[in-house]
């Protein structure tokens, strides 16, 4: 049984506290991925919209899939929504496991699947007043596909 922690929140993610929580499970190895808002091309603010009724369920489903696929002591998946500035954290995926490769692979799996399966949409707001929805990328779909049987 893996300890699953899945959160969808407006607030910042306390990465140190989240990783300490997973460390305490005694897994031996702990891998994490943190996504940060990049401030490229004059982007001033990133708006993250989501499907509130669905996001938590999809994220929990992804976490459960990771826990079935690898032997994990724990899995944490946290995704933010709302208005984020450059340098702010968007997402954290983390996995604790006895073996380092299980932790690292589960962490990569989680972030790949979140990108293509979790109902979030990003809109970039630029300093000059323009704004545009971020288009999905085929490279992300390909990254998810590599985990399919």
């Amino acid at each position: 049984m893996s300890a699953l922690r899945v959160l969808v929140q407006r607030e910042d993610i306390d990465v140190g506290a989240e990783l300490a929580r997973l460390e305490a499970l005694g897994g031996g190895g702990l891998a994490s991925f943190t996504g940060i808002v990049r401030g490229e091309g004059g982007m001033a603010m990133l708006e993250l919209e989501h499907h509130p009724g669905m996001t938590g369920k999809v994220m929990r489903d992804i976490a459960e899939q990771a826990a079935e696929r690898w032997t994990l002591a724990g899995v944490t998946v946290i995704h933010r929504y709302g208005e984020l500035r450059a340098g702010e954290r968007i997402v954290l995926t983390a996995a604790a496991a006895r073996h380092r490769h299980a932790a690292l692979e589960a962490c990569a799996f989680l972030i790949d699947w979140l990108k293509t399966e979790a109902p979030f949409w990003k809109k970039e707001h630029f300093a000059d007043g323009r704004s545009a929805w971020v288009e999905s990328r085929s490279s992300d779909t390909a990254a998810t596909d590599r985990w399919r049987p």
Partner: protein
Amino acid sequence: MAIDLLYFAGIREAIGLSGERVDPPASVARIVDLVDWLVERGNGYVAAFADRTRLRAAIDDRFVDLTASLAGAREIALFPPVTGGAA
């Protein structure tokens, strides 16, 4: 039968609503039929659903194909491909 619709991202902006309750005729059996029926309303709906290759849907919080049946559905979400995560 009344169904709750939810719109997200560009679809929401084009239509100008985050959701609405609709009561389509019995001939509207699948999601694609629902979309065709909505487009008949004109303007915002036409723009929202102009590119069907970039349309995705969920019924009662589960992703479905656009050919999925509406039978038994309580809530239908219509949205573009998701772009969460990072980097």
